[in-house]
């Protein structure tokens, strides 16, 4: 009996794995970057893959876009993003796999049409890497963005990877991963924030966040407002502070705590931010490490950061969008009162009172300079 079971195990496995589409890795085109666009009531999905050698890939001649170097783009069209992806799979010579896709680019039109429509198929694909990053392409189609990169002989997926590394240098975590954005889509009261990309001569840049309202692209935040959001979300790792007295400092530690209070249906949020900076550049003669000077500088950097925070809170008040996940915070900290204001949350956002308590410390960087 045991022998029979042992014999049956591999056979059963073969049967069970029939649908797993056993495929050698060299028989697959691994899509590294996936672009999603929407125009003329039609979705276009562009898959950028590494062609490896001359014999590999190639894409369907009718469907594939331009391609130079080792990266190629294959495209599919359909009424929905998923239909476009299936079209891409159907027309490409080799099997298409999204298992290695590290970046998902949403064209601006697709973002305006709705992020849910663009990304829903990702949440139902078991092969997708949950740590893949989602970006919005500012005022451009994702396919154009990718084609321009190929034309400029850029290695797009590597440049995007480099950008991810840079993002991690300034932020403690990337909130634009597939899993985070899909989770954010369940939070109907808060806006979804997705970093937007622009192409620069030197490469790709993240300038700030694209703000979604009811799953549709509403606005692009400027750089400082986006920084303010990062401070409020307590994900800022390092940040430069340039003071007018020709002194540059670098924030090496931050800790933001938000405390929401509801009294008489009025919401007040206390923002407590502690941070530490290191002196990086001094272009003045005075000894800045005297107590008096230090106190002055501390005050200056506090107000510098306060201005950045205010930009984010003011934007939220003016636009009426919850851009730093306040809904969840207010609900968690005021469970019983939340029921009363929940239905009017969108109007309540504009009336929130923000109270700032900013404390900082300046530390010396002992190298050679005094």
């Amino acid at each position, binding site marked *: 009996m045991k022998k029979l079971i042992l014999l049956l195990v591999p056979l059963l496995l073969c049967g069970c794995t029939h649908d797993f589409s056993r495929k050698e*890795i060299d028989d697959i085109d691994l899509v590294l970057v996936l672009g999603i666009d929407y125009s003329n009531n039609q979705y276009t999905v562009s898959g950028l893959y590494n062609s490896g050698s001359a014999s590999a890939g190639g894409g369907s001649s009718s469907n594939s876009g331009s391609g130079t170097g080792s990266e190629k783009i294959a495209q599919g069209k359909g009424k929905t993003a998923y239909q476009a992806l299936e079209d891409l799979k159907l027309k490409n010579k080799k099997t298409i796999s999204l298992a290695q896709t590290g970046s998902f680019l949403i064209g601006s039109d697709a973002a305006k049409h709705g992020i849910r429509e663009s990304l829903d198929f990702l949440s139902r694909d078991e092969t997708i890497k949950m740590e893949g990053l989602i970006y919005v392409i500012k005022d451009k189609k994702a396919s154009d963005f990718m084609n321009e990169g190929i034309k400029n002989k850029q290695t797009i997926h590597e440049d995007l990877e480099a950008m991810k590394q840079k993002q991690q240098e300034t932020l403690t975590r990337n909130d634009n991963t597939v899993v985070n954005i899909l989770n954010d889509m369940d939070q109907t009261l808060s806006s979804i924030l997705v970093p937007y990309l622009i192409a620069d001569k030197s490469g790709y840049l993240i300038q700030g966040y694209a703000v979604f309202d009811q799953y549709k692209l509403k606005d692009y935040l400027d750089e400082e407002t986006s920084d303010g959001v990062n401070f409020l979300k307590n994900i800022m790792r390092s940040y430069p502070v340039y003071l007018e007295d020709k002194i540059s400092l670098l924030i090496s530690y931050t800790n933001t705590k938000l405390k929401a209070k509801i009294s008489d249906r009025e919401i007040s949020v206390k923002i407590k931010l502690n941070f530490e900076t290191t002196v990086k550049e001094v272009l003045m003669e005075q000894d800045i490490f005297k107590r008096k000077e230090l106190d002055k500088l501390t005050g200056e950097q506090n107000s510098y950061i306060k201005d950045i925070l205010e930009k984010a809170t003011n934007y939220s008040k003016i636009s009426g969008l919850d851009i730093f996940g306040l809904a969840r915070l207010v609900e968690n900290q005021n469970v019983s009162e939340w029921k009363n204001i929940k239905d009017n949350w969108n109007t309540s956002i504009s009336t929130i009172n923000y109270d700032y308590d900013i404390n900082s410390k300046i530390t010396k960087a002992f190298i050679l300079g005094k």
Partner: protein
Amino acid sequence: MEQVINSQVIKELFSKSGDVLVRPIKINQNDITFHIFCVDGMIDSQLVDRALLRSLREDPYIAQYKTEKAVMDYLQNGGAYHVFTKEESDYQLLLKYVMSGMVAFIFDGEKKAIIYDIRMFEKRSISEPTEENVIKGAKDAFVEVMRINTVLIRRRIRSEYLVIESLSVGKVSKTDLSLCYVSNIVNMDTVSKIREKIKAIDIDNISTPAFIEEFLVENPKSLFPQIMATQRPDRISANLSDGRIALVVDGLPFVYLLPCQLVMLMQSPEDYANHYFVGSALRAIRYISMIVTLFLPAFYIAATTYQNQMLPVQLALSTQAAKQNVPFSSSTEVLGLLISFEILIEAGLRLPKTVGTAMSILGGIIVGQAAVTANIVSPLVVVIVSLAGIAGFIMPNQDLSSGIRVIRFVFAFLASAGGFLGLTVGLIILITHLCSMDNYGVAYLSPFVDIDESNHKDTIFRYPIRYFRKRTEKLAPENHTKQK
């Protein structure tokens, strides 16, 4: 043929054997004749002449003993000086003693013999262990002679409780065995069980280790070794003190240890010679190597054939590029190379040492470089298989290493059939198998599965010796405490 002790009967029995000597010796002083019975080449003939025969010839007192019985009594009470002297009336035992190299004086009238242990045959001297070498530690190893091996054990355990029981196995070979244990520590039920198993062995000859191992293991179908063979007396003595039982077999240059657990097979004497931190690190590397050698080839197959998302993107791309011109599937590549690796190992073992080394180098070049150049395998597969192969050789126990090499193939097959699902099924079967194994009342995965945490101090990590305070309960039920 009549089975009585008689020189004529024995002469007839060995009439065609030129090396067996049955010769009459006459004691002139009292006209009594007895027969010397021995095997030429197995005795120290000079000592027989000097200590036995000459003393008989020149003994002035022997004349007063006129009967065979009186002479026998006199010889045993100081007439002939030797440490091991025994009167024997059992015909079969007499044959056994003489065939093992002892000398017998046969007194036909009494139908008895006096046995003297004056064995001396060509034997290998005690040398360094070939498999369990240590830099810091004892350098002696067991040899093929059972008595020398028991001496090596006794030298290390001078306790009066060390018992060395003599047994015999093999209807034709009559191989001597010694069952060693420390009586005030060991679980006597286990000793009885092993003794019964040995007595129940009914084969002709113990020519290779497998003849005894297969009769003693509790799960003969398992690929995991359940009886540990070691060349090192220090290892035996340490395990005897823990409550285990050693089995010394004449003719084998190693000693068996029972009951054996997986954790023992992963330990090396060097662990205890080094600082506990270094010892722990080395041991951890061994466990990591076991995982690498078991799963790496299978992981590669599963990742490149089914679930490529398990690979980092750069590795996936380089794997894809490396496989572009290889005509075979990943499973064929890995399994083919694993088989080639085994062929090389076998060839290296069978060939003379000098040729074997050249063979390994040449084989390495052929299998590695040439196969890659000819696009038969991708370079990454060569790296994977080599890494798995080398990791397999880190195992301190050769039997475990061999078992793992076979299981590695099973995992590779399962990964070919079902990817990570197959690998997971294999892993579940392996863990279930290991957890269900019981070796003379002690779980094979003990002490990992023991509730008593005090047993966990010498597993993957080696704690300082001062923490080894207790013995495993099932090994030493009456005597737990090692140190206070």
